[in-house]
């Protein structure tokens, strides 16, 4: 199923998570909108940048240090995804990682080695910047101490070419929550923006009750989304669930990304959460990244890219491993549309 998007709506585009090879005219889009001047002037004043075309990528849940079952290939999918990204015709302005960068380890030094290995692999991505948020494997046992030593603060924000990005930490308190302090910080951070500003939130866990009994929720997610509700253009990118999901709540669109280590089963048809078994003939089934590209009709089109056996045997070029997206339209039972 294709997810076609009106190129005049930036949020729909940013919500696709990965923009490899996107030729996206952000500034012309703004010129056709009533609030264009307001947003353009605002971002010029804030950071000296005029809204303009850009691409970025989302990787999620590489779990560096995990060794199956179900996936005995360790970091191979992650490394291949990095190589794949570097084959893309257009370099992304930055890459976001939505948590579980590493697999947890009982010994602190082992966990530190995994974080170092993650940094080594991710540093091969041909991009000027990498932005991360922690998953529970990275930061929940020690309150984020080791994570901060390697990656810096667990929550922060930045502006990029006319879009405001907010990195939220909903794992390091152990309990799946953002917490009152971070929520107050986010409200203050948002206060300077007009309600029409494009806002992208990236975090690890879903900010709504996707499947609470599988721990696919954030306890104070409603508080986060209520704070975001006055804003017209909100996209949430997250990981944790190791599979695609799309849900719309009010103005906000929530997109889950695939993992780079193993996939989980479908919560709509299964009572218990299980890792999908490893298939030696299709070792990267259910793993991958996303593409966003133009189609002849002038819309933007989402395409899922799975890491295939062909890719496992050696990179053959991005065109050969691109597959039309069939998964994104398979929404969760919580989907509004």
């Amino acid at each position: 199923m294709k997810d076609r998007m009106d190129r005049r709506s930036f949020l729909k585009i940013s919500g696709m998570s990965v923009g490899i090879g996107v030729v996206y005219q952000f500034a012309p889009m703004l010129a056709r909108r009533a609030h264009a001047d307001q947003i353009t002037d605002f971002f010029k004043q804030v950071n000296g940048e005029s809204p303009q075309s850009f691409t970025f990528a989302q990787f999620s849940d590489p779990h560096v240090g995990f060794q199956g079952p179900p996936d005995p290939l360790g970091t191979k999918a992650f490394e291949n995804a990095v190589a794949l990204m570097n084959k893309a015709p257009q370099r992304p302005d930055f890459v976001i990682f939505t948590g579980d960068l590493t697999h947890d380890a009982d010994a602190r030094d082992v966990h530190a080695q995994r974080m170092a290995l993650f940094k080594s692999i991710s540093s091969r991505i041909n991009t000027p910047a990498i932005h991360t948020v922690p998953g529970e494997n990275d930061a929940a046992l020690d309150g984020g101490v080791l994570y901060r030593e390697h990656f810096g603060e667990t929550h922060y924000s930045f502006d990029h070419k006319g879009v405001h990005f907010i990195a939220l930490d909903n794992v390091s308190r152990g309990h799946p929550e953002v917490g009152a302090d971070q929520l107050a910080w986010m409200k203050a951070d948002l206060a300077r923006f007009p309600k029409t500003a494009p806002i992208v939130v990236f975090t690890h866990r879903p900010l709504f009750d996707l499947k609470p009994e599988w721990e696919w929720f954030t306890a104070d997610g409603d508080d986060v989304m209520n704070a975001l509700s006055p804003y017209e253009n909100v996209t949430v990118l997250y990981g944790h669930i190791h599979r695609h999901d799309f849900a719309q709540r009010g103005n906000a669109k929530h997109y889950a990304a695939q993992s780079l280590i193993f996939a989980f089963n479908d919560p709509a048809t299964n009572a218990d959460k299980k890792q999908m078994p490893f298939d030696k003939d299709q070792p990267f089934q259910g793993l991958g990244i996303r593409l966003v590209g133009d189609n002849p009709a002038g819309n933007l089109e989402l395409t899922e890219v799975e890491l295939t056996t062909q890719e496992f045997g050696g990179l053959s070029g991005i065109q050969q491993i691109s597959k039309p997206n069939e998964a994104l339209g398979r929404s969760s039972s919580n989907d509004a549309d």
Partner: protein
Amino acid sequence: MTRTNKFAAAIGIVVGVATGAFAVHASTEPTPQIIKINASKFHFDPDHIILHKGQPVTLQLTSLDATHGFMIRALKIDTDIKPGKITEVTVTPEATGNYTAICDHYCGLGHGMMKLKVNVEP
């Protein structure tokens, strides 16, 4: 009767009324059943409990090692269980059904296996 005695009598009447009211109130509330549950890496003990619709129950939750969580969304229970203290949760199930309690405070690599089955029977 002196002023002091009148005052004392009045206090006695008030206390008596209050005590009587409390006794009546207490007699109408069913005493909650108490179920003790121990949490440790990475299981609950017991791992299966039976509750009854309309009957209050107090879960006495204790951790034997690290901080754990105890969450049953259908029964609106979500609490941390910290070691060294008893965490009490009282609930009256309003409907029959089968639920799963999970640990929702990350406690290590076996965290996802910490589950407890809850059957609410008539």
